[in-house]
């Protein structure tokens, strides 16, 4: 069987790209990583592969383009079934998809609010962010990972987002572990995984990047 061609259009600081890279590593899928220079100008391949949004990540599998990180992780799970990222039963899958959707909608919106605003607006965003983490912490319960004993779909969806948590903490002047002890423990647990340790950038580097982003957006 000829080697499958898997290419990821990537950006080092994108939490969405991190999700896909972690999923591919967990599955042991060999792929070619192509870094996009999002400020220098998007490549023709990116614009051609994702004509609707023009955004990373894009997974190119045997020349088929799959877009939107949560959808890509689902695709990776279905295409390379071992080890499974989603629970085997339909109800477990539905729970995982619910929380992935929650993370995509609530965690990012509030987190973005923290770095993109100041004063009262920032306080509101901070409270919403902590609130969303508390909901996730309740869903985690006493389990090691969201799926149970194994690192899986929801863990991957959240850990990508978590790469920006240090930056949110710095801008919002708070510490997640003061509010969500169990989720903090989950974060440390995930960081020990080879795939996560390999993919997540140094928190300081992400923070520096967000400082630049803030300047670009004319904040402060």
């Amino acid at each position, binding site marked *: 069987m000829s080697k499958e061609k898997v290419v990821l259009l990537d950006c080092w600081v994108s939490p969405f790209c991190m999700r896909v890279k972690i999923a591919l590593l967990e599955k042991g899928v060999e792929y070619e990583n192509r870094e996009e220079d999002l400020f220098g100008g998007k490549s023709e391949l990116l614009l051609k592969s994702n004509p609707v949004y023009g955004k990373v990540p894009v997974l190119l599998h045997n020349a088929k383009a799959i877009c939107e990180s949560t959808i890509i992780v689902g695709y990776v799970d279905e295409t390379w079934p071992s080890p499974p990222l989603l629970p085997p039963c339909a109800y477990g*899958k539905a729970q995982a998809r619910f929380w992935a959707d929650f993370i995509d909608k609530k965690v990012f919106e509030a987190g973005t609010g923290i770095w993109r605003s100041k004063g009262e607006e920032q306080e509101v965003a901070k409270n919403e962010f902590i609130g969303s983490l508390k909901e996730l912490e309740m869903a985690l319960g006493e389990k090691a990972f969201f799926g149970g004993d194994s690192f899986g779909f929801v863990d991957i969806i959240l850990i990508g987002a978590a790469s920006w948590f240090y930056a949110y903490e710095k801008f919002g002047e708070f510490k997640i572990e003061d509010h969500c002890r169990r989720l903090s423990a989950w974060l440390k647990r995930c960081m020990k995984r080879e795939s996560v340790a390999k993919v997540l950038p140094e928190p300081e580097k992400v923070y520096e990047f967000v400082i630049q982003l803030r300047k670009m957006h004319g904040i402060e």
Partner: protein
Amino acid sequence: MAEDKVQLLGYWGSPFALRVKWALKLKGIQYEYLEEDLPNKSPMLLELNPVLKKVPVLVHNGKPLAESLVIIEYIDETWTHNPLMPKDPYDRAKARFWAKFADEKCVPATMSSFTKSGEEKEKAEKEARENFKTLESALEGKPFFGGEGIGFLDIAIGWLGIWARLVEEIAEVTLIADDYMPVLSKWFKDFLELPTIKEALPPRDKLLVHNKGFREMLMGGST
């Protein structure tokens, strides 16, 4: 096999509850429908969907599920006859992509054209039209998004054929421009004429009154 107990908490005017109803109907699943008296949310709803407190909620043998597209995939995976989702992972990814696009691009632009005025309204109207036009390309020359027959994507976005037309009438905008997107326009008509789909639709005149009131509320009493 023990009898399945299926309940659906919904609201008559909710398009998200409607698309779950369509999935249940297409699978021939017997269920008990419980109407929520929104905005007075019942203790049952708050208990079953404590995180988002929204309808629809499907309860299957006592286990609650929330978020309509998640519910539809659950229904499809639990009752596997008359499959709604394609089998191939790439086709499944595409179906999910377009459902997300409709919810995250077509819907907000439609809502903005509904509630804003002046220049903001015009801009939103144009954006909504372009987003619907983009959706048209996903049909790829087939009669339905599911192919020869309807599938997941058809029931995920078909409701817009009713609601976008209501917005057009109430806010006096053009969103699904027949001449600009004839293929999508035809698909909306064909989909909504299917008996299983049509039977579940709430009465249009009731929806019109309800949404007119909703708009007045959102625009702060002025039209």
